């Protein structure tokens, strides 16, 4: 069988983005003509506290029309809170917002929108059962007639025009629940742009986008900028920041730290501003070579699922990091979840230490030494209103003893050891996980899985939405795990992470493995091409799909 994707000439060269591949190359944005203009949005002395916790204090900055301002800061620095204040979701406790020189205060999100401030929020703001057009216009659908009724035709037409303007092709009558994650993001972006806004805020808009889609986004930002709109761009990825933004503002612990032109500052300087200390190496490779790595721990052969992935084979050795790269929706998470026993429909051969195993539930997977740190921390990872120690010991409860009261000491010891290892920042172990900042919640989830003492640990997007300091910590931690002899599967949509951390890279596209690259082979261009299904030599290098006769079905 041959893979049906034929290399289409020119497909690698999208018409609008001339370079085919990843590089943090700067697109040719029109030179900022805004330097001299008066600021469209000005904040001063903004403060906000939540039940005694100070999220922001005395923050001020300004943005000019046609300017892209990057808002930077660690997790929990207060960026999203600021966004919510600007969009009328939260009300500031103190401070002034000036829009085009006028002091404003927004009673409702609607008021902010009408005043010309719109945002793509960090959390998905989507109504699955409604159509694309309605998702864009919800709450302010065009009306007609008497009594006023929603003008569906006009609404859809406007949505269509909007997409045409953005040069994104989306069916406006489709229900959002049928869209992919990336498509949903574009719906959100379209919603923010559907009103001729003076200020558009994007809070980590690229977290779930692939490189190609990120370039789409860049293009849209360039359009906005050319039209004189002010853009506030929030991201933890420095390549993006340097690619799109003109100026930066840094927050730390809810305070304003610094602002300036990006042209005048280097990445390490920015990082230092954000974190307030040295971060060290972001991608510390564990230093083992393929030769020093041990025997295979996990072998997967012809692993298939009726709809999600097809004939996946790979093997993993002790002390090795294998990266899984692909576009969002490539089926990596489904594959990993199936390995973890979460998807009974999957079938194929899985061997641990050379012995075939059948994993039908997460409990069995844990028993075989497999751990899976899911990508969606909020929904799949943490149990937000349970105490920290209860989160950590959840998967190993039966190992502790049926009557937990009698073993409280032991439970807390395990929690303490792992938290110290991970440098968890918390006040006490009975604290609810919900009270921790995002990065620390992620650490609790990691601790939970380390508690099972796994031999293979699957990390699904472990640094998604994590700031640079914590990211470096997670990477350091991965290296340590490997040095202790664990085998790591690192699923990531971030090229630098995959390239920096992995010994080998498996690239998936539409549920199939396109190619397995060694660390030496892997280049950004090749990975992106493979992930898009455009690998020039795809037909040649197909060792995975050629051994059909060994397929085992059950």
């Amino acid at each position, binding site marked *: 069988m041959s893979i049906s994707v034929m290399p289409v000439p020119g497909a690698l060269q999208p018409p609008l983005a001339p370079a085919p591949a990843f590089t943090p190359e700067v697109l040719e944005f029109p030179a900022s003509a805004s330097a001299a203009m008066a600021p469209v949005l000005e904040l001063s002395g903004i403060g906000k506290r939540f039940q005694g916790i100070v999220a922001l204090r005395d923050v001020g900055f300004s943005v000019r029309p046609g300017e892209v301002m990057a808002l930077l800061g660690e997790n929990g620095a207060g960026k999203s809170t600021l966004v919510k204040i600007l969009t009328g979701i939260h009300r500031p406790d103190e401070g002034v917002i000036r829009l085009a020189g006028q002091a404003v205060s927004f009673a409702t999100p609607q008021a902010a929108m009408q005043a010309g401030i719109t945002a793509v929020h960090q959390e998905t703001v989507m109504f699955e059962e409604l159509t694309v057009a309605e998702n864009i216009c919800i709450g302010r659908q065009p009306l007609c007639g008497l009594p006023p009724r929603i003008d569906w035709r006009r609404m859809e037409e406007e949505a269509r025009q909007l997409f045409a303007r953005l040069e994104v092709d989306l069916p406006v009558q489709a229900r959002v629940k049928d869209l992919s994650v990336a498509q949903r993001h574009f719906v959100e972006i379209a919603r923010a742009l559907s009103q001729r806004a003076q200020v558009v805020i994007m809070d980590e808009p690229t977290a779930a986008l692939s490189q190609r889609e990120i370039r789409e986004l860049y293009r849209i930002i360039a359009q906005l900028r050319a039209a004189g709109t002010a853009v506030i761009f929030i991201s933890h990825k420095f390549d993006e920041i340097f690619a799109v933004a003109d100026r930066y503002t840094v927050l730390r612990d809810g305070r304003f730290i610094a602002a300036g032109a990006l042209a005048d500052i280097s990445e390490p300087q920015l990082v230092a501003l954000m974190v307030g200390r040295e971060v060290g190496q972001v991608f510390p490779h564990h230093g083992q070579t393929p030769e020093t790595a041990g025997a295979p721990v996990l072998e997967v052969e012809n692993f298939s699922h009726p709809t999600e992935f097809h004939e996946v084979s790979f093997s993993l050795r002790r002390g090795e990091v294998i990266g899984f790269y692909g576009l969002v929706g490539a089926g990596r998470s489904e594959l990993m979840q199936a390995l973890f026993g979460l998807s009974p429909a999957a079938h194929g051969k899985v061997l641990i230490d050379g012995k075939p195993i059948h994993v039908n*539930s997460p409990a069995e997977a*844990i028993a075989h030494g497999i751990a899976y740190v899911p990508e969606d921390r909020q929904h799949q990872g943490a*149990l937000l209103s*349970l105490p920290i120690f209860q989160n950590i010991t959840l998967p190993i409860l039966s190992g502790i003893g049926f009557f*937990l009261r009698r073993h409280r000491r032991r439970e807390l010891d395990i929690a303490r050891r792992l938290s110290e290892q991970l440098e968890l920042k918390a006040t006490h172990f009975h604290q609810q996980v919900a009270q921790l900042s995002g990065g620390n919640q992620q650490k609790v989830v990691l601790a939970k899985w380390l508690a099972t*003492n796994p031999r293979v640990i699957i990390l699904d997007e472990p640094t998604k939405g994590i700031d640079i300091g914590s990211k470096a910590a997670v990477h350091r931690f991965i290296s340590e795990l490997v040095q202790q002899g664990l085998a790591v599967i690192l699923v990531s949509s971030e090229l630098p992470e995959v390239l920096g951390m992995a010994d080998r890279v498996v690239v998936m596209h539409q549920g199939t493995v396109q190619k397995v690259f060694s660390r030496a082979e892997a280049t950004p261009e090749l990975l992106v091409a493979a992930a898009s299904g455009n690998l020039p030599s795809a037909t040649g290098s197909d060792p995975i799909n050629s051994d059909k006769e060994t397929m085992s079905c059950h």
Partner: protein
Amino acid sequence: MSSITDTASAKAATNTATTAPRTSRYQISERGSFRAADLLRHWETLLGLLLIAVFCINCLLLPHFFDLTNLADSTFNFSEKALIALPMALLIICREIDISVSAIIALSSVTMGLANHYGVPAYGLFFVGIATGVACGLLNGLLVTRFALPSIVVTIGSMSLFRGLASVVLGDQAFTNYPELLSDWGQGYFFDVLPRPFAVLIVAAAVFALLLHGTTWGRRIYAIGNNPVAARFSGIAVDRYRLMLFVLTGAMAGLAACLLTGRIGSTRPNIALGWELEIITVVILGGVSIAGGAGTMGGVLLAILTLGMVTYGLALANIPGIIMTIVVGVLLLTTIAAPRLLRGKSSR
């Protein structure tokens, strides 16, 4: 076998603790510092105070209230309902609900009547009653877990089905002539003072409290109620727990049916009509969150006693039952609304 490996891994986890000593930048203490004011924020404390207040007011206003035999007798009024409230609390903590409990009582009572009719010995009747409850719970649980249906919908349907089946069997007849043993348990006393159903309740409540608050089993129930997906990802057999809780609820409803049948000595299809709402009310009053993941057995038990005292007081004052429903409704609304109102509108 998974548990064995778990033990191993837990041990191993403790071992690595010693091999990889590390000092963190951060200090984490075991517990938050204790403040007396925090105690007042506990729902159980408030319920306890309410119970004391109700008790004192009743003692002052009602001449016949403070009389040990009377108080003991008053427990007959709520013991069976309370027995079902215990597993119902677990179900609600687990984000499920069972509306069909009172219908299960009816069906259990009917099968006991049938069994009695065909000469099953007295002890066998307990078995029959509880087994019927288990079967009903199993049906609910299977429908909920296999078809991924919301439990409120399933149990609305099965409520109609179970009570309907009871009426199919009974028609316009009634089962009576239950053996002595059954009525001993339904309305007898231990040592001539402690009503047996209440004693059963106390034992059951202790067991449930221990299970929920002291064991891995209870911990997992909280985990499921808190975040079912994350619980499943953590290796908990979520559906198995759900199924088990439905079965447990059915079994307790069966047990309640045994006591109730013993107490009133007859079975009609409309037995225990409308109890499900009283049971759910008491569970919610006990501080169990309808959104799941929170609540304690102590709270539920206190709510049972409080409500029992309130209704008993009202009955002694000869206030008609329907006025009592107003009182209970207002109590429910105020207890959930008061904290919200006192805290003021949540600030944005």
